[in-house]
């Protein structure tokens, strides 16, 4: 009995995967950049625009009520999906990047003062570096970096030493996009909380691969993007605890985030609307709702084990290529396989793989400090989703041999 039979059956839910590229069946291994979308998500968004499209939170007419209900229902779905305590703790944003910017801007500008420190890790995406860098420059504060070992794992002893009375926030990635490392975030949150320091987790790469329970993790903020989790681009979620969100000033301002406006004074709206100025990406939100329904149906824990099998299979196969070196060999790892081949630049690998119909990412993965840490300019990265197959990985092995034949 094939315990992953039901997962294998999901591939046909993704219409895009049926196409051919350069005359070969598409092998989509760029899932860490963005996931493909199942038909139910595409249909939900189309149905919204065909039947419900209207502006929300302001109309008394039928369509506006219907659109508002549909959009707000997604907030409830997200709340249950990540097990947040309240719907008001779910803020719609454009994506993980905007979620981090919101916290850096709103929480950061009130909590971080001259001489304070912000703590991030050595494996952050630029989106979890630059907003803090800007904040620290502005406040004359210091950005500190938790080092990692050669496997690409955070060194917890060093982390403990970096938590000081000056540390005002810790912001770390849950799963690394460049290395695949799954960080021990629950433990790291607890360590910070012992010293009363709040923690933001960047869950962009975690949400599509594992069950995330924000209350179990204990984090103060959690961000993720819909598009990496089978939903559309342009929408994401910031989760924050009521206590912190309530105390934070607004991020952007305008319509929807207010209770009343006169030219003398504005009274801000309650959570979550205080942080949602302007007409949001309603259609995108509807798509995210459908993606969450879909992930609930396919069972994310089975997805995690299946992807782990794919990763183990791919890792064992590429390790037979002597000139290939895997970058990121953490003991706890999601389905990301970053690698370099001696004497062959990742871009040349990417071009030859593309010619074989295989889509991978090549470059620095918006994590230049990670590349610097490993002393390389770039990597080639194959990242798997549950709709990928071992047969596709076999095609990938064949293409890697072609790379070496042409360029080795």
């Amino acid at each position: 009995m094939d315990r992953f039979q039901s997962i294998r059956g999901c591939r046909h839910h993704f219409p895009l995967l049926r196409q051919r590229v350069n005359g070969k069946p598409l092998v989509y291994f760029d899932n860490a950049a963005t996931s493909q979308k199942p038909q139910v998500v595409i249909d939900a968004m189309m149905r919204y625009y065909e039947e419900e499209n209207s502006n929300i939170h302001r109309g008394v007419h039928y369509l506006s009520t219907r659109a508002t209900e549909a959009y707000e229902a997604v907030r409830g779905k997200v709340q249950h999906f990540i097990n947040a305590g309240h719907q008001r703790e779910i803020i719609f944003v454009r994506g993980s990047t905007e979620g981090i910017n919101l916290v850096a801007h709103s929480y950061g500008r009130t909590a971080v003062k001259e001489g304070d420190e912000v703590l991030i890790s050595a494996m952050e995406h630029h989106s979890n570096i630059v907003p803090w860098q800007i904040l620290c420059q502005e406040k004359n504060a210091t950005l500190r970096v938790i080092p990692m070992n050669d496997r690409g794992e955070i060194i917890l002893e060093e982390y403990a030493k970096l938590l000081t009375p000056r540390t005002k926030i810790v912001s770390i990635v849950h799963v690394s996009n460049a290395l695949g490392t799954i960080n021990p975030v629950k433990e790291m949150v607890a360590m910070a909380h012992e010293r009363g320091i709040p923690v933001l987790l960047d869950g962009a790469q975690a949400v599509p691969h594992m069950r995330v329970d924000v209350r179990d993790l204990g984090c103060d903020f959690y961000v993720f993007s819909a598009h990496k989790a089978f939903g559309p681009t342009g929408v994401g979620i910031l989760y924050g605890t009521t206590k912190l969100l309530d105390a934070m000033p607004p991020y952007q301002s305008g319509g929807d985030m207010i209770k009343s406006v006169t030219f003398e004074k504005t009274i801000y709206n309650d959570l979550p609307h205080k942080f949602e100025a302007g007409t949001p990406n309603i259609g995108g939100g509807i798509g995210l709702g459908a993606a969450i329904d879909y992930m609930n149906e396919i069972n994310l824990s089975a997805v995690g084990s299946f992807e782990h099998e794919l990763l183990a299979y791919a890792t064992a196969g590429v390790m037979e290529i002597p000139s290939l070196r895997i970058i990121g060999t953490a003991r706890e790892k999601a389905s990301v396989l970053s690698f370099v081949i001696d004497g062959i630049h990742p871009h040349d690998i990417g071009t030859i793989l593309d010619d074989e119909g295989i889509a991978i990412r090549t470059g620095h993965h918006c994590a230049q400090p990670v590349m610097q840490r490993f002393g390389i300019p770039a990597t080639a990265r194959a990242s798997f989703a549950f709709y990928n197959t071992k047969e596709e990985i076999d095609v990938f092995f064949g293409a890697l041999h072609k790379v070496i034949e042409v360029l080795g």
Partner: protein
Amino acid sequence: MSAIRELYQQVILDHNRSPRNFRKMADATKSMEGYNPLCGDHYTVYLKLNGDTIDDISFTGSGCAISKASASVMSATLKGKTKAEAVRLFEQFHRLVTGSLAAEEQTDSLGKLAAFSGVSEFPARVKCASLAWHTVRAALEGEAKTVTLE
């Protein structure tokens, strides 16, 4: 020949493995950095100018096979050429890699540069092929210190 073999022609593979004029030049009269932040290709081109003539040219740095081979073939091609000839060759080369060079223009004057004709089938790689050329042109025109291709 497949598009991939057309792209990675023998000349390109050879210049990638053993790049010509791959050295720092101590007595360069001009040097310029070229950088493509998207892929990390990063080169420095050195020129020794004698009036309008490129007496010597060399480069250092790292990047993909296309960018390195292009810098190498370029260096071999431009040695002894005048500034005007260099600019004209770059224009011709750029039309070649973007697929807009008319067939009748593909004369012997291109020499080994013709090996880059396959690049036109790979729009994502045009910047790789032209990085070193942009860098030299900037050096000849005396622009800022680093050329950044976006």
